[in-house]
């Protein structure tokens, strides 16, 4: 399955942000639930990325006399 190129770094920092926000305790319940769901979705996406994707190795034309 062609996985959409997940930007691991970006999603990861978003997850950390969500955790920090939820910890701050300044959120109302609706925001918390929205963030909670977004956080869970990111975790699942990253888990799939880690488990599924292979590395692709290709050669570029370099002069090897």
């Amino acid at each position, binding site marked *: 399955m062609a996985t959409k190129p997940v930007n691991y770094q970006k999603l990861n920092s978003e997850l950390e942000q969500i955790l920090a926000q939820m910890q701050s305790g300044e959120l109302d319940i609706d925001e918390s639930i929205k963030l909670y769901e977004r956080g869970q979705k990111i975790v699942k996406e990253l888990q799939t990325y880690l488990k599924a994707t292979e*590395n692709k190795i290709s050669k*570029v034309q*370099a002069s090897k006399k």
Partner: protein
Amino acid sequence: MSEQIWSVSDFVAVLNQTLEFAYPGVTIVGELANFRISKNKWVYFDLKDENASVRCFGTVYMLPGPLEDGLSVQVNAAPRLHPQFGFSLNLMSILPVGEGSLRRAAALLEAKLTREGLFDEARKRPLPYPPQTIGLITSGESAAYADFIKITNARWGGLDIKLADIQVQGEAAIEQISQAITLFNQLPKIPEVLVLIRGGGSADDLMAFNSESVTRSVAASRIPTLVAIGHEIDTSLAEKAADKCASTPSNAAELLTPDKKHELVRLKTAQSSLNQHLSTITDNLRQQVKYFADQFINVMRQTFNNERQKLATSANLLEALSPNAALIRGYAILRSGDRLIKSGRQVRENSLISAQVSDSVIDAQVKKVDYNK
């Protein structure tokens, strides 16, 4: 056979042709002496050993880096007899050889490049962590390549690795590495990081990574560089010029990407802290709602009590103010028909009136109205 008599020029020309034919290019190892550069372009030196010495001539572009007398070097050159200047070796390439000279040459180059600020910490750029595209420069058949790929695959996925399969040893390596770095920097879509790796070897094997050309290419790369050459102990100039250096190719793989296993554990903890945060938030909310509910009940109870009290006082007041209470105390309400009588002027003698007392109504007739009582 009559003796051949030459003119000087003919003799020089013929000898040169013979030399060119017999020795198009020779490789000689010897000690550098009387090394000098003129007009920042021409290089003159002698190549000598204990018993002999021969003059050499070349250009600065052939130098692998700064050189000094006393270094032992390996020279590729073409022996020529110059009509005016006599015999000399025309340089094709020159490299320091042997542990001592290589170290010395590297030190000279390091001093020069340090002065230029090539190794300054401020130049170092962070590497993307994790990267998605990698430009890998090494020999495809080397153990270094195999280790790097094995460890990278074990640690991380989704990487797009482009390999520039080049020689990592010998003179050709210098040019091939520099060209590979330039190649990656000119791709339409440049990789996020360049990785240059090579396993252990002798000083001669690692010579390319102490050459000026490779060191400058690494420093000049627009793409952040990670270089891991040879054993941990010695650091090549290419590693010093890189944005990040690793002790071995495997270590390079470890620096480049997180480890999937750790990340999966971290994600599990992230997941549980998400749950935990949410339950803390909902618990707080539940407590808050309970608090509000209790508050509400208290307030309600209080209000209710207040109301009841107020009601009681009004009732008492009402009771007190009600006409009936006056009647009980002996007062009476006089009416003429249904008109209330408040003053004697409202009646005349013999008119009929009714008097309401606490328990009944008495009909009566007015006898006299006396104002001075």
